[in-house]
């Protein structure tokens, strides 16, 4: 029976062989872009918002005759992707495979902060530039600048300060703050609390809750007793849905209600209808910003292809990251060092307006807030890019 195993191993090797030779011959075929994705595991629900944006970008590029790789040459694009099972260790392995085995021409980003941070050393080691997208943490700044960039404007400490300024401007005097214990929410809270104090906003409740919380009624009704002007719920998608359900039941009357992650997902508006109206959330993009001529066409194309609106955070960031790559390749070609220099120094024209990196961060796109207004996502802060005025929440 030991024979069975050696035969199995042999079969495995035999199955792999044609794959590797086929890939090796593809040098002059389509341009190959590799990425790893959380198709299964902890983050699996989030994957479509990113993969859909990638696929849309690919369709558009190929419809235009391929990716401009400089010197007037165009090559069609295809993706090489693997499931990392939402596990950073797998993602590290996948990017090593993409770079050293599959020898892809370019890389696109994986899902989530932990996985971005885990693969940063791999990129640096192989000197392979990659534009990140769905990562948001103050830790990003600790990454050594070089081969990875983060286009997000949701940098938690800035979000905290901007949010307090925004609330003060709307005459918020008292606030209840509930925060999930996961990193993004806590990082925001760390700067939000002192900023609220500085702006003279009084805290009537300040509680943390676990990621798998099933009931928020005690938190909400506790805060309701002092009827604060604002409910700031630093939540992740599942608790965002939970909060909306229970805030409605308990008739939260605060005119300023923020949920951190979730309201930009179309399912949220579908689930709560008018209850979702005038909810504030974090995000730096709206299809209605006319200063960004590419914003609306992206929205329309996404809607046409997938029959749902793009997620204003993740789909947009994912698309932006490839736009940046696309424009950098058109200037620099496929040489990794030239590409790195270009991404690090040029200004890019994206669906979210101009983007320029300083170190690993996008310093151009302002930290902003969105509000759901009659089924549409509008930028309501800061002044220079807002598409609509803030509206107080009047009911659920």
């Amino acid at each position: 029976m030991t024979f069975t195993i050696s035969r199995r191993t042999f079969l495995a090797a035999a199955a792999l062989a044609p794959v590797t030779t086929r890939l090796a011959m593809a040098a002059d075929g389509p341009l190959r872009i590799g990425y790893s994705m959380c198709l299964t595991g902890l983050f699996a629900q989030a994957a479509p918002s990113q993969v859909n944006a990638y696929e849309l970008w690919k369709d558009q590029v190929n419809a235009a005759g391929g990716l401009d790789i400089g010197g007037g040459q165009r090559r069609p694009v295809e993706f090489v992707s693997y499931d990392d099972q939402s596990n950073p260790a797998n993602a590290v392995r996948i990017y090593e495979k993409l770079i050293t085995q599959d020898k892809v021409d370019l890389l696109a980003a994986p899902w989530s902060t932990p996985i971005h941070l885990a693969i940063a050393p791999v990129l640096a080691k192989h000197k392979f530039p990659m534009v990140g997208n769905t990562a948001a943490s103050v830790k990003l700044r600790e990454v050594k600048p070089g081969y990875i960039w983060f286009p997000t404007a949701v940098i938690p400490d800035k979000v905290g300060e901007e949010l307090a300024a925004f609330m003060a401007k709307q005459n918020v005097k008292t606030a209840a703050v509930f925060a999930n214990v996961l990193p993004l929410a806590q990082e925001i809270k760390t700067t939000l609390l002192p900023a609220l104090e500085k702006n003279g906003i009084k805290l009537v409740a300040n509680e943390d809750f676990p990621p798998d919380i099933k009931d928020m009624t005690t938190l909400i009704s506790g805060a309701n007793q002092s009827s604060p002007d604002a409910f700031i719920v630093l939540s992740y998608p599942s608790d965002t849905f939970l909060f909306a359900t229970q805030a409605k039941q308990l008739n939260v009357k605060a005119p300023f209600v923020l949920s951190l992650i979730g309201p930009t997902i179309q399912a949220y508006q579908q689930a709560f209808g008018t209850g979702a109206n005038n909810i504030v959330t974090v995000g730096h993009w709206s299809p209605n910003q006319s200063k960004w001529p590419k914003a609306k066409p992206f929205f329309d194309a996404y809607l046409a292809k997938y029959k749902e609106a793009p997620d204003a955070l993740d789909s947009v960031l994912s698309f932006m990251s490839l736009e940046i790559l696309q424009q950098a390749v058109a200037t620099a070609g496929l040489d990794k060092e030239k590409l790195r220099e270009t991404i690090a120094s040029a200004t890019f024209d994206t669906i979210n307006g101009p983007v320029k990196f300083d170190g690993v961060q996008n310093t151009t796109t302002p930290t902003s807030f969105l509000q759901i207004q009659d089924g549409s996502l509008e930028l309501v802060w800061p002044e220079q890019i807002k598409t609509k005025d803030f509206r107080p929440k009047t009911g659920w």
Partner: protein
Amino acid sequence: MTGKPFQIAAFLAVAGLLALVPLLGSEYWLGVAFIVAMWIALIQSWSLLSATTGYISLGHAVFYGIGAYVLVVSLDWMPVPYALALSGAAAGLLALVVGLPVLRVKGPYFVILTFGFAELVKNLVMLLETRLGQFSRMIFDAPSLEALYYAMLALAVIATALAAWTAQSRFGRGLAAIRENEVAAEAIGVPVTRLKLFAFVASAIIPGIVGGLLVLRTSYFAADQAFDPVVSFTIVTTAIVGGLGRVSGPLLGTLFLVILSELLWARFPQAYMMILGALLIVFILFVPQGLAGLVSKGLKR
């Protein structure tokens, strides 16, 4: 007993082959070998308690997570080898402290308790990190993959040797007696409590170090990821597919599932999960002895 020299030779051959992987010069295959060694180390350690005594732990991620946490915290004060040793020690200590109360319950209650305990520790670490104002941690200048790989391979070898020694030692026979009938074992003078506790602690130390090594590899720590319950599930699944109660079980199970996932993950991740589920059912129903049982049956024939 004729199979024994052959068995040892086979184990040595596998270890030797794995030790040669870095010479391939392929970072990808080194990464695969790292994962293989990791699962072997984890599952052999788990088997030390669960396969021998029948106390099925569904919370081994807790030792792995605590190892990762201790490493990432202690790295500020000490070099990597000491931090890794501390990871193992912390996991062992945790097992010692919780072992006595936890090991008093049996069967499904033990399974649920270990799972719940792992989730409890995860939430406690998250809370602690929040209080410390540290929501995730990064590691800079981790050792090379090659160094990490040799350390992981050493753990796999030690865990396998430990399992092999246990299988034919007085200690192992005591554990088997516990599995067959704990009350009877106690009645004839087997020091039941001491043996169980010893097995529990022994099965925790190596996963602690494994957790430390893995966080060095990914260079990022967040509590919800480090204590991922999927790790616990995978340990049990792989052990069942490989075959409980045989030293070769974890080896075969790991090699089989890692190769399977390497073949399928490329295009069919969902199919992989379905196949995994189907395999588990098939093995439990029709091949309770696992791959190791199939192999030894084949050898006898």
